[in-house]
């Protein structure tokens, strides 16, 4: 298992004036044994980043290191077959002409493939990804999408790679399968202590599976943090809105509190006094029936909870609150609102510097 480090990595498609910098000076450290998610909207360069680490593309500038070894840098590019990366693409891409056992054993050394040791390794990998051992003799087309993804992970893990790279591994699965397969994959990676990088556009997936999330936008990594820290203190309101539901309201910071139209709240992190915008998560906005302060415009009912869209009376900004499903107010009714917990403030007079 290796630590992966990217420094000032640049990759552009096209030449000259038409060149598009898909990866534009990215710095990223994936600690040994970490499961890092690279999160971003489509077109942000995250898949290109993954292909650079795998070695399918060579960066035009910058270096990529596995531990202390430079695998891509000025004058040196190690081809993918010598990097010992395990690559898990979308939809698994199992070899259709080989059965499950041959797929998993594909990357093992030749003398091991046909031996008892090879068969043991295949069985061990099937156990690891929680598939029955009888599946070894099946063809890829006899497996469901989730099972194919598990086999693809087993195939990547079998040769004990330095790092496993997952490219939107669950995006083609339906919602329920996505969760169970995701958990199984995270569990297998953790059990083997494998360093892994997963690229995804799904914030729930990134936050729930990874222990470190790097948010990418327009070829740059904007913020790298543990999921909890990323959600609590996003580096700017856009990142905040990308990793979860968010309402941004005008506020005034004085000391360690921010005051806004419908209340005030303590600051999560120090901010200079003056005009600011604060980011409120839906679960931070409380809805109660005792006072009147906002009108309910829409209610989206999900069962376990409901998203309530509110308009501050008389013509204030719109807010979104999350309440337990059965407690949701009726659309058109008038309710009171409050705010709980610390909030993050972004001064409007002096921008954060990142944007």
């Amino acid at each position, binding site marked *: 298992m290796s630590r992966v480090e990217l420094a000032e990595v640049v990759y552009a498609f096209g030449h000259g004036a038409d060149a598009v910098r898909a990866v534009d000076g990215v710095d990223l450290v994936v600690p040994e044994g970490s499961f890092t998610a690279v999160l971003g909207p489509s077109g942000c360069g995250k898949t290109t980043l993954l292909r650079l680490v795998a070695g399918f593309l060579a960066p035009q500038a910058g270096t990529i290191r596995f531990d202390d070894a430079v695998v891509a840098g000025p004058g040196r590019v190690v081809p993918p*077959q010598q*990097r010992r990366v395990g*690559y898990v693409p979308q939809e698994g*891409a199992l*070899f259709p002409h080989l059965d499950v056992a041959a797929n998993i054993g*594909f*990357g093992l050394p030749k003398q091991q493939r046909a031996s008892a040791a090879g068969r043991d390794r295949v069985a061990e990998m099937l156990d690891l990804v929680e598939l029955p051992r009888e599946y070894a003799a099946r063809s890829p087309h006899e497996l469901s999408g989730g099972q194919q993804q598990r086999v693809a992970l087993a195939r990547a893990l079998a040769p004990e790679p330095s790092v496993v790279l997952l490219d939107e591994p669950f995006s083609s699965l339906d919602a329920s399968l996505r969760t169970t397969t995701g958990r199984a994959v995270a569990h297998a990676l953790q059990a083997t202590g494998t360093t892994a990088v997963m690229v995804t556009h799904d914030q729930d997936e990134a936050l729930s599976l990874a222990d470190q999330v790097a948010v990418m936008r327009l070829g740059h990594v904007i913020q790298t943090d543990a999921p909890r820290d990323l959600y609590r203190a996003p580096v700017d309101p856009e990142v905040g809105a990308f990793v979860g539901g968010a309402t941004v309201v005008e506020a005034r910071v004085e000391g360690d509190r921010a005051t806004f139209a419908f209340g005030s709240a303590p600051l999560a992190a120090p901010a200079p006094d003056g005009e600011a915008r604060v980011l409120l998560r839906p679960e931070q906005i409380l809805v109660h029936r005792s006072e009147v302060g906002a009108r309910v415009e829409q209610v989206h009912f999900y069962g376990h909870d409901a998203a309530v869209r509110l308009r501050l009376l008389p013509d204030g900004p719109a807010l979104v609150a999350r309440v337990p499903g059965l407690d949701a107010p009726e659309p058109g009714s008038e309710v009171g609102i409050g705010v709980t917990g610390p909030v993050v403030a972004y001064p409007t007079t002096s921008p954060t510097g990142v944007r």
Partner: protein
Amino acid sequence: MPLGFVATYTVAIGPAEAWELVVRPRVGELLWNTVRLTVGVMTLTTLLGVGLAFVVERTDVPFKPLWHGLLVAPLAVPAFVNSYAWVSLDRSVTGYAGALLVVSLSYYPLVYLPVVASLRGLDPALEESAWSLGHSRWRSFGSVVLPQLRPALLGGVLLVGLHLLAEFGALQLLRFPTFTTAIYDLYGSTFNGAAANMIAGVLVLLCLLLLLAELRLRGHRRFARVGQGAARQAVPVHLARSRTPVLLGLALLVGAGVGVPIYALVHWLWVGSSTEFPVGELLAATGSTVGLAAFGAVVTTLCALPVAWLAVRHRGRLTTLIERSTYLATALPGIVVALAFVTVSLRVVPAVYQTSLLLVAAYAVLFLPRALVSVRAGLEQAPVVLDDVARSLGSGPLEVARRVTLPVIAPSIGAGAALVFLAIATELTATLMLSPIGTDTLATSFWSASSDLRYGAAAPYALLLVLISVPATVLLMRQETLER
């Protein structure tokens, strides 16, 4: 190479002499014959192909799978065997009318098959949308369905035209002289290629003209279905009172296209006075046919692999040019390729003249496009991501090809090789001109017997030729239907 040969020859001979050779009353007559036959057959096969495809695919005619099989069956009978059947039963089937009838009966499946496949793949929702927007059922067909069929139809008709321009055996038997038969006669009688080569030049021009016309007509519009999900089955048109006439028409056509050759073969095998079963010769001819076809198929497919790989995985101007130039060979009649190989080998490497090696090389040029289409389709369906995964698992490029790419596309390679095998087995023109002395194939043995009017003696060879073509037809049928 053959194209360059025709061009250089024209230049070398000098414009004055070339002009003299081309502008002759005989050439004018040949041109008129060739053009009117080509136009006639292309029109007739279009009508037959589209009409039959509509009946089988979009009406409630009974026994659809049976009719489909029977309508494709003429593909298994080489055109020259079909003409032999007609001519041997009725000597009056000659000239323009005879040629038009017999050749159209042999070639209409080339239009029918792609049109059926295209109709089957067409989303009926398109037609239904036009229908719901106020168009009548017939108008919907004309305004929405026919334009969608255009690529398939044009492709099929182009194939008919090219086949026809290259057709030699059938037209020779039907005694309808065209450029191709004239080239052969000139070559055979004088052994000096001057006149033959010049006419070959005109023939190649005609072929290129057809190819360009098809490209031009096809245009750049998008015809693919937009959106996801599987298309439903179309609701069939109820035939009602026209059911009996439609069935009768189908029966008549199948009778003429399949019944006549079968009847003729059986007739000559059982009743023919010249029927003989020279088992030794039959076996020898079968042996050399299979040998040549197998060797040719392997060589051709091996040539197709790198071309297809470059065209699919390393698309660029040069690779596209290389790929397109091999398709140009589809437009080259076998006789032109053969002529080029004869002349060039005699001048440059006389040692290989009349060897199997030269013959196989000519086959490779002629049939490379068939192998290429199959191999290319297979490669296009083999996802590049499989290569990426294999590389990440430690395999170098050669190992990836050996362990992943080749096994994945093996079925396509096999299909391509099979198609080439069967094309070679039933090839007549180039084989006649290039085969080593003393080597008889089924096609050449059949040819020498039938052109001497020994119909009975030709029958066993014809039967073997048909039997050898059946698997190819089934394969082609499956491929066409699966591809769309």
